[in-house]
């Protein structure tokens, strides 16, 4: 479904993505992890053209998505993107956040869009908050509304850029629960996340990145129990024993 071929990206002299070649299959759940500044957010943002690439190609279902002349808006409307900061529109209620894009882009009538969005809010457990403004919702609730909003365009692919990193610890679970349900329903998902429990349980594959390179690709079982690359071993030991003295 998604194919990265020799993708490179530079920010000035800084080499943010280095020769990334990767394939992600339909229905696969891929977790991308790695230390801060490793290029994992950049990688996921190139997938819906929030970031341009310097060289190489990225294709989805055989179509080069960074070519000139691509209808970017139509293309983006087929991909759900979740941000670390939720980015709900604060001047609209939860349900209005969900219906905005379908009404304007899929030409749904407001009534039809509302009905569909209510079902989605129900799916993320927030039907009762439909008429609440974002400021009246907790972080976890906001992120769940954001998931419902992304699903309202019925995308075949969902991208998550550290969706739980801005949340208080007690709210992480409710968001991961919704994401796990999505994965079980067969959604193709690429998640940048630090939630190793989620990766272990839900992911089909883990990509480990550092300095813009994909250093390791493995099943969660193999990655967590037998990491091959020294940098991955170091990373896993760091997150398991955060107070250990550096050697």
């Amino acid at each position, binding site marked *: 479904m998604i194919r990265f071929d020799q993708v490179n990206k530079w920010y000035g002299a800084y080499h943010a993505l280095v020769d990334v070649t990767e394939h992600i299959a339909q229905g696969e759940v891929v977790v991308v992890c790695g230390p*801060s500044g490793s290029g994992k957010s950049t990688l996921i943002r190139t997938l*819906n053209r*929030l970031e341009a690439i310097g060289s190489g190609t990225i294709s989805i279902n055989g179509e080069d998505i960074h070519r000139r002349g691509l209808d970017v*808006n*139509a*293309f*983006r*409307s*087929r*991909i759900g*993107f979740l*941000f*670390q*900061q*939720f*980015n*709900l*529109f*604060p*001047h*609209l209620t939860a349900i209005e956040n969900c219906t*905005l*894009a379908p009404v*304007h*882009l899929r030409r749904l009538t407001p009534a039809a869009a509302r009905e569909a969005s209510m079902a989605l809010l129900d799916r993320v457990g927030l039907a009762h908050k439909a008429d609440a*403004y*974002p*400021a*009246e*919702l907790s*972080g976890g609730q*906001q992120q769940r509304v954001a998931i419902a*909003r*992304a699903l309202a*365009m019925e995308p075949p692919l969902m991208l998550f850029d*550290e969706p739980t*990193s*801005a*949340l208080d610890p007690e709210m992480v679970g409710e968001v991961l629960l919704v994401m796990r349900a999505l994965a079980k329903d067969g959604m193709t998902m690429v998640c940048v996340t630090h939630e190793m429990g989620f990766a272990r349980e839900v992911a089909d594959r883990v990509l480990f990145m550092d300095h813009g390179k994909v250093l390791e690709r493995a099943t969660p079982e193999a990655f967590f129990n037998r990491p091959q690359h020294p940098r991955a071993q170091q990373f896993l030991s760091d997150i398991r024993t955060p107070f250990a003295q550096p050697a």
Partner: protein
Amino acid sequence: MTELIQTYWVYFLIGQYPNGPLGGLALTVLLAALALVLALPLGVVLGLARISPFRVVRWPVTAIVYVVRGVPLLMVIFWAYFFLPSVTGHKTDQFSTMLIALVLFDGVYLAEIVRAGILGIPKGQAECARSLGLGYWRTMRLVILPQALRHMLPSLVNQFVATIKETSLGYIIGLTEVSFIAAQINTQVFTRATEVYGLLALTYFVLCFGLSRVAHGLERRLTRRSPVRPASASPTLQSQQASA
């Protein structure tokens, strides 16, 4: 005082109308209202142009903003009054001249308010709208401007109040707005300047104060509808720590 008001109140309110052109307070209100209604869309367009990614759009508008902002309104009025007829070939009446000058002058100031208002919205809002597949214009119209205009409201009111007061400069080109009429009355009863100009000041104050109160009420209603600021404001600190 009462005698003064009794004699001149109709003249003060509508000038020589219906035996002559409309003037007085009615003309001032009409001029100010038209200027506001026309200057705001111009301000939004110029403001958007100021932050356009395209240089061909950004540079000329930036130049206009700097030039107009760098001269007094009086100069703009003189230009409109003397320069415009020499270009168009026929004489523009004082009302249109004043209106054009006001719309251009205030449009430029509003553009800067709009620009600041848009830049004040977190970048994630536009990114997110674009990610949903909304184009540039829809993103602006549906997501960015509704939020930005709300934050801009106090500055907008400031500029609108200034516009009302600026209509008095029409006096200089013989526009029979309320200040001009007051000066006329003053020459007719020239021993009572304090009262005449006191009443004139009071009139402007009532207009401006009224507008401020309406805006204040509007602001409160908007705040009630969706409390607090952008939803992403609070977790910023955490995210900085997380990405540090």
